[in-house]
Each structure stands twice: as C-alpha cells, then as structure tokens.
C-alpha cells in the first residue's frame, strides 16, 4: 500500500463543472457524443456530436464530421459541419467541408472550403441526407462483412 501520489505530476487542486473539455495535448479517437457543452482545444478524429454548444479553440484540430446544437469555431475542422442553431466562425478558423446552420456569422479572415447551406430547412435537409448516407454506409459495410 502507498499513499496518495504526491509530487507525481498530478495536481488535485482543480475542479470544474458539467462542461466537457478536451484540452491541448489530448487526442480523442472514435465516436464522440455528448449532451452537454463541449470545449475543444486538442484533437478529435472520428465523428463528433453534441446537443449543446461546441467551442473549437484556435489550437484545436478536428478531423471528423461535426454535429452540434450551436458552435463557435476558431480552430481547424476537416469534415462536414451541421449546426442546429447559430454557427460563429472566427477569423482564425479553417473549415474544409460542407457547412449548414440556421444562422451563420463569419469573421473576415476565416477560411471555408465547401458548400454552405443557411436556414432551418437547409439544416433539416442536410441532417436527413446525412442520416440516409450513414445508413447506406452501414448497409454497405454490413454487406461487405457478410460477404467476407
């Protein structure tokens, strides 16, 4: 038996509320889903979905299709972005992929490459299209698996 790991690189004096934070120096891989607000400063690979507010920091690198309730993007996203309500794109942001949101604010200097759809109808159309293509992808994967 040992005592608590003092002087071991762990500072126990910190605390935080219900917001999920992915800090710098941390990599997330896989299917990330959340109901709460999320702040990303690290990297994310896979798929990302949150019902809450997504904040993508300037150092953040996301290689994933992103689905969020609302979003503020200052970092890099490689993938399609669907935002239910408001998307704010800051001057430091780089988004490579199709973007859809009910309302969008884009600061001068931001880099966006892909199609853009604005309005609530556009969001629901893109969401249902994404669901259909997701089902097709899963279907084809299942077919490949069953063949093999």
């Amino acid at each position, binding site marked *: 038996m040992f005592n608590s790991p003092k002087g*071991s690189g762990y500072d126990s004096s910190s605390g935080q509320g219900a917001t999920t934070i992915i800090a710098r120096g941390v990599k997330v891989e896989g299917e990330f889903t959340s109901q709460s607000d999320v702040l990303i400063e690290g990297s994310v690979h896979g798929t990302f979905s949150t019902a809450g507010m997504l904040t993508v920091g300037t150092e953040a690198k996301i290689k994933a299709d992103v689905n969020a309730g609302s979003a503020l993007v200052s970092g890099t996203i490689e993938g399609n972005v669907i935002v239910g309500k408001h998307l704010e794109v800051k001057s430091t942001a780089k988004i490579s992929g199709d973007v859809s949101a009910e309302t969008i604010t884009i600061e001068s200097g931001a880099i966006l490459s892909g199609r853009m759809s604005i309005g609530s109808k556009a969001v629901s159309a893109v969401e249902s299209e994404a669901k259909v293509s997701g089902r097709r992808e899963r279907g084809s994967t299942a077919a490949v698996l069953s063949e093999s």
Partner: protein
Amino acid sequence: MNPAFGYLYDDFLSDRRFERDLGVLETELSRRGIQGQVGKLAMFRSAREMIVDMACAGVKNIVFVGNDKTLEKMMWFLPDVDVTIGYLPLAEPSQIGNLLAIPMGLGAVDILAARFIESFDVGKLDDRYFFTEVVVPSTTAALEIEGQYRVTPTRGGAIAIRNLGSISGKSAVSADGQDGWLEAVIQTPTEDGYRLFGSSPIAETHIRLKYGQLISKEPMDVFMDGHAVNGFVFRLSIVPHKLKIITGRRGGLLAEKEKV
C-alpha cells in the same frame, strides 16, 4: 448504550496524545445518547469481520473514528455492508470530512446526533470499490469511454477518475458524488508553457462517464483511494447510491432524514 450505534477506533488513537480527546468525545456521545459498542482496529484484526459482526449484532450506524486513512482502508468492501456510515475525524488528514461538511473533533458529534443521511455513488475499479478518486500519475495510458471513443494524453500526463472528489492536495476538490457519473480529469503539460518556480502550466481535460477502461501498453501504477494497484487494463464503472453516510451537508437533493 444505544444499540443502533457502533464505533471503530483507528489503531493510531491508542497513542496517549489522543487519550484526552477520546475521553471528551465519549462523554459527549454519552450525553447525546448515541454512545455505542466500540471496536479498536489493530494490525492483525480484520476490520471487515469487525464491521460485519457489528452489523449482525444489530448496529445500524457504524462510525469511524480517526482520519481519512481510516475510511480509505474500509472503502473497498464497505458499500456491500448494509449499514449507515458515520465519520468522526480526530486528526489530519480530514479532507473527506471537508467534502462531507464534517468538522474535526467535537463538532462532528453534532453532525452524528442530527443523523442527516445522504446516499452516495461509489466507483468501481475492476471489482473493488472506491469512494474519492482513482489516479494514474505520469502516464501515456488511454482512457476508453463507454466503448465509444478513446482519449489519450499525446505527450503524457496524469489521469484522475473522480467520484466524490480529490483529497490528495492541500485542499479538497469536490466532484458530484451523487449524480451517477464519474468525472475524468486528464492533466497534460502545455507545449508552449513557461516554467515558473519549477512547474510548467497544465491543461485540463474534463469528461463525464458511466463506465470505461484504462488501457496501457506498459504496466501502470493506479492509486485508488490512496492505495496502489498495478496492471495493464482496468475497468471503471459507477454504482449509484450505494453508500449511506451521515453528513453535515443539509439541503442535499438526495438526502433522506431518518430517525433512529
């Protein structure tokens, strides 16, 4: 003597320094009508057997007298015993006391006498319970969350999985020990961090989880409630409302007031 109460004194209280404190404490417990059977923990005496024996004898409230270490020694089995837990901290460290709003010394008797009971979640690391937190210091281990995704500190860092909170620092840090969630805290050194008084700034990742796994290619030391275990893979989960504790935190949402 109140048959509903039993007291377990930690080994270190046999030191003469605590004779007077214990005398005053016992007098006060007697005055309040909550004095009870007393057991003394010792090196070759099984704490588990003593607790189970007390419970079988009809004791409903077992009160641990000592410090945080006293409670930590019991947590791996305590949630499986059908009793309400009380805590009388008489010495430092008493950070668990701080998290449960139980003052050190005689003030804790007021809390016991009021018998305000709250139910708490307990975490599980493989098949062993933990109450406060699990810490993996200086690691490149990954945390797999609910079979969905994996979180890795790319340049190494410390991983803590909190239930009630952290008690290993100078002051206790609370997590919500009643919400049915564990909170993962991953501390990583920042790349461009400047050094100040020998320590570099850290960034903190916070994620809530119901279950997951700690996975490492190298064997890792994991500290659960201060006790070390070693291995490559550890399963994590939470058992909601498993432990009933007498606390000083009036107004807790899941609290239930019971009369003896």
